[in-house]
């Protein structure tokens, strides 16, 4: 029925989106004057050295051809070079990073836990805190609390992420020395250590992200609280906190959830600044590295990975609409 068709349609769209994005990545990459082979050419770089490097990395074909080789590789796997030194990348092969000497897939999968812990943890915090504060400042509209939280929110959006992270490290990590100053401990290895290493990055990230949630919740809340059905709820004797927390909030969530989808999707694809400042080996750090070292395969991999998450997040959010607000039918 309808739902099924919707889901199917979106999944197909997803594939198209990813394909287009891959193509775009290649296109954009080849707008760059720099030549990735140059980096694998050695120093001093002789013309024939360059030629061999190019051929070996498969950069000697036009980029469209390369892209289709890449796409084919996903299904068939790929082999670079020949003989004993040949590099094999089994299907599904999302490319091979010559600089990191690993398949892009293994690189990303190895980094995913870090980024996911970071993003999801922070997301939970900022969602709860952001929405919570938003509701509060809506109820206490115009009071000092309202003004202060708004100033806080604004500070959050306008503060440079890098500085906030840095200060957090210097103050809590180095001066007070109460939390680790950097790094990451796998959850599986040592849950406590994991939490310990995560807490600052989470808070920093949450602080930077919470603003829009606070503000959106507040403004929507002000609208909804005036609706007639709120009056009905009160007339039923529903406690005020339930009136706000259940009846009103549910009607506020639509845009909030939307932003959440976008933010979380984006962050799962790598929280570049936070990861780098806190020296966390996440996907974001991987991506930025790939950009600076012109590691096209890795770049492509990271881009597609991030895009995939964003698309899926948006898709789930769209699915959620129907559940959140029965009137918000999707077509």
């Amino acid at each position, binding site marked *: 029925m309808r739902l099924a068709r919707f889901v199917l349609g979106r999944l197909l769209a997803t594939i198209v989106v990813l394909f287009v994005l891959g193509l775009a990545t290649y296109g954009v990459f080849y707008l760059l004057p720099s030549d990735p082979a140059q980096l694998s050419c050695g120093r001093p770089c002789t013309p024939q050295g360059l030629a061999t490097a190019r051929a070996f990395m498969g950069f000697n074909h036009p980029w469209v051809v390369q892209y289709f080789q890449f796409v084919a590789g996903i299904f068939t796997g790929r082999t670079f070079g020949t003989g004993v030194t040949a590099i094999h990348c089994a299907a599904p092969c999302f490319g091979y990073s010559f600089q990191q000497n690993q398949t892009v897939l293994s690189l990303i999968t190895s980094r995913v836990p870090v980024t996911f812990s970071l993003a999801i943890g922070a997301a939970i915090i900022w969602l709860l805190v952001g929405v919570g504060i938003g509701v509060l400042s809506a109820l206490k509209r115009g009071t000092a609390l309202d003004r202060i939280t708004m100033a806080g929110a604004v500070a959050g959006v306008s503060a440079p992420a890098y500085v906030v992270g840095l200060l957090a490290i210097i103050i809590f990590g180095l001066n007070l020395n109460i939390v680790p100053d950097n790094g990451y401990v796998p959850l599986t290895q040592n849950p406590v250590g994991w939490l310990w290493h995560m807490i600052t990055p989470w808070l920093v990230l949450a602080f930077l992200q919470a603003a829009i949630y606070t503000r959106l919740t507040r403004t929507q809340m002000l609208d909804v609280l005036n609706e*007639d059905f709120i009056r009905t709820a*009160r*007339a039923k*004797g529903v406690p*005020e906190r339930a009136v706000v927390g259940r009846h009103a909030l549910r009607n506020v969530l639509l845009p909030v959830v939307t932003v959440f989808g976008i933010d979380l999707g984006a962050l799962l694809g790598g929280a570049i600044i936070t990861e780098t400042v806190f020296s966390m080996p996440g996907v974001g750090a991987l991506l930025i590295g790939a950009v600076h070292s012109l590691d096209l395969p890795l770049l492509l991999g990271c881009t597609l990975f991030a895009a995939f998450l964003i698309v899926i997040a948006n898709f789930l959010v769209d699915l959620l609409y129907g559940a959140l607000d*029965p*009137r918000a039918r999707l077509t």
Partner: protein
Amino acid sequence: MTFSTEGAETVAADEVSYSVAAGEVLAVVGESGSGKTVTAMSLLGLLPPTATVTGAAFLSGTSLFELDREQLRQIRGERVGFVFQEPMSALNPVFTIGAQVAEAITVHHKIPSAKARQRAEELLHSVGLPDPARVVRAYPHELSGGQLQRVVIAMAVANEPALLIADEPTTALDVTVQADILELLRDLRSRLGVGILLITHDMGVVADLADRVVVMHEGKVVEHGTVTEIFGNPQQEYTRQLLGSVVSLAGTPTAPPVDESGELIERGAQVAVVGHPATRSVVDSPATEPTLRITDLSVVYVGRFRSIAVHAVDRVSVHIEPGEVLGLVGESGSGKSTLASTVVGLVPTTAGTIELAGANLATLRGKARRTALGRIGMVFQDPGSSLNPRATVGASIAEPLLLHSDLRGGDLDARVRELLDAVSLPTAMAGRFPHELSGGQRQRIGIARGIALNPALLIADEPTSALDVSVQARVLELFRTLQTELRFACLFISHDLAVIEEVAGRVAVMHRGHVVEQGPTEQVLATPLHPYTHRLITSAPVADPEDQRRRREAWRAAVG
């Protein structure tokens, strides 16, 4: 009590005082906009912050205005139940009916949610909702006006309160259902000694249920007394005027013929289906050059994820000639509004065709379609939610004019004023926002909007349900004059058979998605062919306590 709206202060109610004893029904009647609703709401402190209330209110000794939040909360819904005037906007759109009814119980009594749900279903059943199992899972926008109204009533009586404030509890109900509801209230009163504050325009209902009556006018109580006194010898001019403008059915109908054979019975222009409940609709009576012709229209609401599909309208064929008024009456939830909405394309048709002056609306696109729609005026059933909350009343009325006429600036204003005046609203109202109006006022805005363009076809869905009889009389008067002037065709949906008798030349009776009977109004009302029609007519209350009591007995006997 006063409202401050951007500077201007509105006195909504002034020195109003009344009392309700346990087991007593006090009816508050009076002019639309006279402060009935706000006074009632002030009791539970439900007014917007813009309102300032002075005075005192006592609930069995405790002063309501002095209670703190928590105490007030415990009273709300537990000791005082409240039925809101406009059910469509009174329910939370994102929660299921079941959840909302169950909540009314659980906030005051710690019982397992499963039990609460079950209790909710019972309640919904007790207010005469067919198929409660479906209703509990439905969302508000999936229910009809009358169904919602019954849901609201169910919520109000959920905890068997000491005082029940019912603000226009039956406006959206057809008379049979209305009779059931009144029966329910009567039962609450006698069984549990519930005191009932009944706000209504329907003098029949007053006569049927009330012990004492308070008459309000321009924010003041002008008269009060026992129901017999008020109806017997009204003192005040306004009260007399009020009672004077009550319209009621002429005479009692003959019983329908029993067990006919065949599919249809015809008597002259009057046709009805055989069998109750019906399985088909009657055939359309022959048309010459109808403004609106609906042929074999079916509408099925495909259920959301779990719930089942609803056959709201089933193979209905009707037509309206220019200058003709087709009255559409019938059971609440029988598909009247759906039928109306399908005409203007708000609800997709499942089968059948709709022709406006010979043109099939379904095939029209873009500009052509819009101009076609421009020739249809629509008055929606719930005035509240059909007005843009952020547009001033004036702007709302002006909207169709902006769309389809070239009136601008001064002329536009003039026209808007004219329309406001036509529905006897002060021009000052133009600057107000919908939430600053009373139910009846909002409804009149809807009417003004509907007739703004002098439409070729007017679809009026319960246009007078929230109007007191005097205003109603004026509106109907206006309606007739326009009718004779512009000779527009009109689909007039109403529960008030008397009103139908007044305005409609022909009438169609709907039941469970079928048109079960159709024919010239006086014929149908006097000599109904279909049992449901008969029940409908016999259940209509009359505005005379004595008479109504006798009718009630008869009706009780009939339904057994």
